[in-house]
């Protein structure tokens, strides 16, 4: 039989094949994947167009929605672009609080990715563990911001809440728990010969290809490219923090998993430093504090809860363009805002890491076995709503 006769088209999805609604159109010859094309757009929510009809502050909860497991990155990148246009910078304490939340978010976002990957390759224990261990970090974030995932914590000029009482102590407990728990992760899952057999040497992405295809985040670093926006273009409190860029040489599915695992450990290091170095001071820009009534300023001091000045309702942003970049859990998030001086942006462009990584589905799944598709998919930590926006 010729290849054309033997070839079979298999549709994987679109009803939530793994981490969200998407479809993969696979052409298979026996057990070998000849070609796999990702079919995206099932969860397109037109965030960019919607933003043009919303006021600047109202866009904060909107940009968080596409990537629900990793909301801080989008929130931070968007607000950073606004601040560039406004020509103001958040006070140092606010910068540290932003970094703190970003790193807590990175840990639970990575655990989310590792968990989904675990269940994709058949280890439901890894899934349960990761999702269970997300909980302490979500609990921490909830205490800091008041919500489990959609924090809307970062606002132009600062953040919305002061550190809760005895927060440092609680964070330290969660961090120690995670560090101890990591040993069991290695014993049960990461060093398990079954896991290794499923992941090692599967879906190898070479360094050259990773650069050529414009891959972002842990997937890029797993191929040996030391690129991290936190180092390349430091923002928030990262210039003062000592941390390393995690890279792996091999570029296979296991390397991508290991980058995430090591980044969790690195985030633990960053959180400790942030809490240690946290400066005193206001958490909102003084220009906005002045705009708040004296009675409410008193209330802010008492409770540590930031009140918005009235101008936030119809915040006008000076005309101009701004681009901001942030290293989120899944990779580089870029926001490009064009303002024409009105209450809504003229145009908002949002580039998410998942959108840049979706090309890997086609690139990595050529010539692999069908059972490797989930192993590769999971290792990319691809999140369809984030890519579709």
């Amino acid at each position: 039989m010729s290849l054309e006769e033997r070839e079979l088209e298999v549709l994987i999805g679109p009803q939530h094949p793994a981490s969200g609604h998407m479809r993969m159109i696979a052409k298979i010859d026996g057990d070998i994947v000849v070609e796999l094309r990702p079919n995206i757009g099932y969860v397109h929510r037109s965030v960019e167009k919607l933003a043009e009809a919303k006021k600047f502050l109202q866009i904060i909860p909107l940009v968080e929605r596409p990537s629900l497991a990793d909301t801080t990155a989008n929130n931070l990148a968007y607000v950073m672009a606004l601040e560039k246009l406004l020509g103001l910078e958040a006070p140092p304490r606010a910068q540290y609080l932003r970094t703190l939340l970003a790193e807590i978010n990175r840990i639970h976002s990575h655990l989310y990715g590792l968990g989904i990957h675990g269940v994709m390759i058949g280890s439901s224990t890894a899934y349960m563990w990761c999702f269970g261990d997300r909980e302490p970090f979500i609990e921490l974030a909830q205490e800091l911001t008041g919500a489990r995932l959609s924090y809307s914590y970062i606002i132009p000029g600062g953040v919305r809440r002061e550190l809760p009482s005895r927060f440092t102590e609680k964070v330290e407990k969660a961090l120690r728990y995670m560090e101890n728990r990591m040993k069991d992760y290695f014993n049960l899952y990461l060093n398990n010969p079954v896991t290794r057999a499923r992941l090692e040497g599967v879906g190898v992405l070479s360094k050259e290809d990773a650069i050529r295809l414009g891959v972002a985040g842990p997937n890029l670093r797993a191929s040996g490219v030391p690129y991290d926006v936190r180092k390349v273009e430091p923002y928030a409190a990262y210039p003062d923090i000592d941390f390393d860029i995690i890279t792996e040489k091999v570029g296979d599915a296991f390397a991508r998993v290991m980058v995430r695992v090591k980044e969790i450990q690195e985030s633990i290091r960053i959180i400790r430093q942030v809490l240690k170095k946290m400066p005193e001071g206001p958490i909102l820009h003084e220009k906005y504090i002045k705009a708040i009534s004296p009675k409410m300023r008193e209330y802010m001091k008492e409770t540590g809860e930031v009140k918005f000045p009235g101008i936030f309702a119809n915040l006008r942003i000076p005309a101009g363009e701004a681009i901001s970049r942030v290293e989120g859990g899944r990779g580089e998030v870029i926001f490009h805002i064009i303002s024409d001086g009105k209450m809504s942006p003229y145009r908002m462009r949002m580039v998410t890491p998942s959108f840049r990584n979706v090309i890997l589905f086609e690139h990595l799944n050529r010539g692999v076995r069908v059972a490797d598709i989930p192993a590769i998919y999971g290792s990319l930590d691809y999140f369809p709503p984030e890519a579709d926006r």
Partner: protein
Amino acid sequence: MSVDKTIRHVKALATGIKYLVSSKRMTLMYPDEIEEFPDGYRGMIKYNWDTCIKCGLCAMVCPADAMKMYISKEESEEGKKPVRRPGINYARCVFCGFCVAICPTNSLKFTKVHDVVYNTLEEQVYPPEKFREGVPKPQYKKKPKKMRAILDEERGLRYEPVE
């Protein structure tokens, strides 16, 4: 099979057995147990009719169009000009808390209530008169135990009953 692989197999099994014998569960048996949320939790919103100055900032800042200004009938008839007060639609609310943050008189406040069941969509709309009555009480078949989440070095999370 190599020695190294065998060791790793044994280690994985041993870890599994370890957790089988001494499990570290962090399950909350909802709805028999419910979590008591930390202060500042962004739940449903209560409205103070008397301190509200009807400025409309909450409706202006709302990202989901959940908060809207309604014409308050009685007051409008009394004063012979339209008086507007905020009302909320929980079918649209995203609990971002911008309205609470922007309220210049603290007339809007968070409660810790979040688990309420509605039979119809209309019930989720709270015009000012209904909004002032406060948030609905969650109904449980059996009175649940209130538990507080405590971060723990050994178990990650642990739930303790609240007195």
